[in-house]
């Protein structure tokens, strides 16, 4: 096997070609921040170590069921596009190499708690000494300053301090947890956004900066409408089920379809769409009531309206029902489960999920370029093998001699 040299996705006309990134990120947010920049052409290197193998590498499922840190499929999805170098940051020499490497990069990404990078000798001031216009994007849970700066969260609980979970659940019931961290991949995207803003600013001014990305502030944007209702009316929103977030559409929900755990989503945003739904149902007596012709009337008729609609929908298959409703101009779609994602004709047509060949010789399914670009051509490769870019980074980029390189490997600094 030929060791890959420079990291970066193959592709053409990619706009971030030539941007080099040191990714000290971890968890789920860190890889996505790096991956986003990588998909767009940046050369991104994960900095990791065999001294403490990234937990993502230990998570099942493994390719062909073989447990190995280079075979975790979800790790390969999350870290797709990133390269990898190994450095043991517990050793002073490892930290020194990390500083030298960061100085060769346009920017560095990290999502430790505030102060951790500084304690590793990799804080903004330290990095700046070697490269005055360096950009460090820090992405802690609640930012680098303020009384909550040291709050400990997982992505799942992060959405709670952003107010999002208070709105999630069946209408008028208690909050129901989102059982995975929506905030993590989204925070990673926002991290890439922050990096790009800093690159823009540096292009304008020649200055770098230490970006203070609070995941809380990034995610709290999602509750804007409910936040404004509190600000304007003092109303504290609770869980809204599948209702329209400002109540401006009825019916608006998830309704049962024929089969076990099969559902269809229906959203009627105006009176004309309601008439389309009535026609699709064959204009039953209850639905042609004049009172239901207006939003106010339909809102007053909840929840009975939703129950009658459900009695109709459950007689139909989800895809067939969505197709019928679409013909009548109604916003409707099947509610997919995970198994459907790989079969659904729309995702298949768009190449949302792709089978890739890992350098170790097995095939695996990850997601592809989830934005389609008309000029740039992105080709996604799975996440890196541990240390796959060590040769290139340490020998070519940092210019270590053969003896230096070998002794760093022997001393488990490059490790």
């Amino acid at each position, binding site marked *: 096997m030929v060791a890959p040299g420079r990291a970066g996705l193959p592709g053409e006309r990619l706009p*971030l070609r030539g941007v080099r990134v040191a990714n000290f990120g971890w968890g789920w947010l860190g890889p996505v921040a790096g991956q986003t920049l990588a998909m767009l052409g940046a050369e991104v290197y994960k900095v990791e170590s065999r001294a403490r193998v990234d937990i993502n590498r230990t998570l099942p499922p493994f390719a062909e069921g073989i447990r190995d840190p280079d075979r975790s499929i979800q790790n390969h999805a999350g870290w797709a596009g990133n390269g990898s170098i190994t450095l043991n940051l517990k050793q002073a020499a490892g930290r020194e190499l990390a500083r030298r490497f960061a100085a060769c990069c346009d920017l560095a990404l990290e999502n430790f708690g505030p102060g951790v990078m500084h304690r590793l000798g990799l804080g903004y001031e330290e990095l700046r000494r070697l490269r005055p216009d360096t950009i460090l994007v820090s992405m802690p849970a609640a930012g680098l300053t303020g*009384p909550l700066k040291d709050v400990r969260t997982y992505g799942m609980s992060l959405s709670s*301090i952003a107010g999002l979970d208070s709105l999630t659940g069946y209408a008028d019931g208690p909050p129901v947890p989102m059982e995975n961290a929506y905030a993590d991949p989204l925070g990673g*995207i926002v991290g890439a956004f922050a990096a790009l*803003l800093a690159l*823009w600013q540096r292009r304008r001014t020649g200055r770098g900066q230490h970006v203070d990305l609070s995941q809380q502030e990034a995610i709290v944007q999602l509750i804007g409408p409910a936040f404004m209702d509190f600000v*304007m009316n003092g109303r504290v929103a609770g869980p809204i089920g599948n209702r329209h977030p400002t109540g401006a559409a009825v019916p608006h929900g998830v309704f049962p379809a024929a089969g076990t755990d099969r559902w269809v989503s229906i959203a009627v945003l105006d009176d004309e769409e309601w008439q389309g739904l009535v026609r699709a149902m064959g204009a039953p007596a209850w639905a042609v009531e004049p009172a239901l012709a207006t939003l106010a009337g339909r809102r007053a008729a909840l929840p009975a309206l939703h129950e009658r609609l459900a009695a109709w929908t459950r007689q139909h298959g989800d895809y067939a029902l969505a197709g019928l409703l679409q013909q009548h101009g109604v916003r*409707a779609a099947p509610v997919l489960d995970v198994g459907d994602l790989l079969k*659904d004709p729309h995702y298949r047509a768009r190449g949302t999920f792709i089978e890739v060949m890992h350098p170790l010789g097995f095939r695996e399914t990850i*997601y592809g370029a989830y934005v389609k670009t008309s000029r740039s051509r992105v080709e996604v490769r799975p996440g890196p093998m541990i240390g796959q870019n060590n040769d290139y980074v340490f020998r070519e980029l940092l210019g270590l001699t053969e003896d230096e390189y070998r002794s760093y490997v022997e001393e488990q600094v490059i490790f």
Partner: protein
Amino acid sequence: MSDDNVKWLDDVAAGGGALQGVRVVELGEGVSAPFCARLFADYGADVIKIETPAGGDCARGWGPFPGDQPHREQSGTFFVLNSDKRSVTLDLARTEGRALLLRLLSQADVLIENNPPARLRQLGLDYAALAPHCPRLLMISITPFGQTGPYADWHAADLNAFHLTGAGSRYCGRPAEPPLQHGTFSTDYFGAYVAVTWGLAALFGRDLAGGGQQLDVSTAEAVAALFVGAQNVGGCAQTGHFDRRTGIGMALASPATILPCKDGFVWMLALETGQWRGLVAAMGNPDWAQAEMFDDMFTRGENADFIYTMMREWTMTLGKQEIMDLVQAHGVPSTAVYTTADVAGLPHLHERGFLRELEHPLLGRLPTLGAAVHLPDCPGGPRRAAPLLGEHTEAVLRGELGLAAGEFSALAAAGVV
């Protein structure tokens, strides 16, 4: 207001917004395209929002409204998504309206839109039609299902997009009940963040890429790939096995759930052994929690019902912030479930200067959400309240396109603007 506007543009130049000089036209409504364009505006881009003369952006009709009295100039959703933009009304069904839009686009770097693809094709404003006139234009299209594929022309709202991702079925709701959305227009917001990020990159490297292009963002695809696909699809492709929602939090391990407390709810998470011991200490070392087998998160998962019952007795004696402060001091990553009121009053956000107040001619002085990211060298964030419908039509068309007074009033009389 037009004087204020000129002043605002000067402020941006002085303050050094990272995107100063970037010119954006927004042809959007609702949440996805407007939020994407707000993120450009927050960092100094000049955003001209095109609205229909007949009522404008649909979010103007969504509310919330003060006192629940509908008024198209007083929608809270519109207010929070459209700060710092200039509103220009144009009837794009008319040839003259489209001609004016093309003139604006010829001066723009970016077009952000979330129209049904068929609508733009009918108007001759799709990317294939625009590209010959504006080869350097970056067109960011954000729709539920994207520009291609069998559902591209489906009618859809955020709800439909969200539930096409598998996120509800897999992660949210009780097993026998409907899958749940994530409490807001969560797919629209996710797609908007994706769009602004790819858009900024495509603009940053426009010359490297060889010119303008269209970014086709499907909000459903972004969430299906990044959120659901990342951790589920690889295994499913290999074995056919996949999981469904439990309604609890985490099926295998515990504690990982939302529990009620005296004044609300808390997200109780303590998976690693050290975190669990910290939680036990925070609870005052109750007898029930001493069993050594409970040091393993999977054993705790098998006994989740018992553990949650016992924990609830404790959480119900305290407030959410008390619990959060106490367990955090013991190294436990559990948090209060903050409500909108908690967020609006949170000392942390106030101390960081996150929440801003903006003056609006009809709504008065109102708080709004600050910049998504704090960049010390170019702070960003909203400066000016969302525009009234068509507030800047004359200023933009006369001031920037150079329409004569007579031309403008003729267009106005004809209902084009």
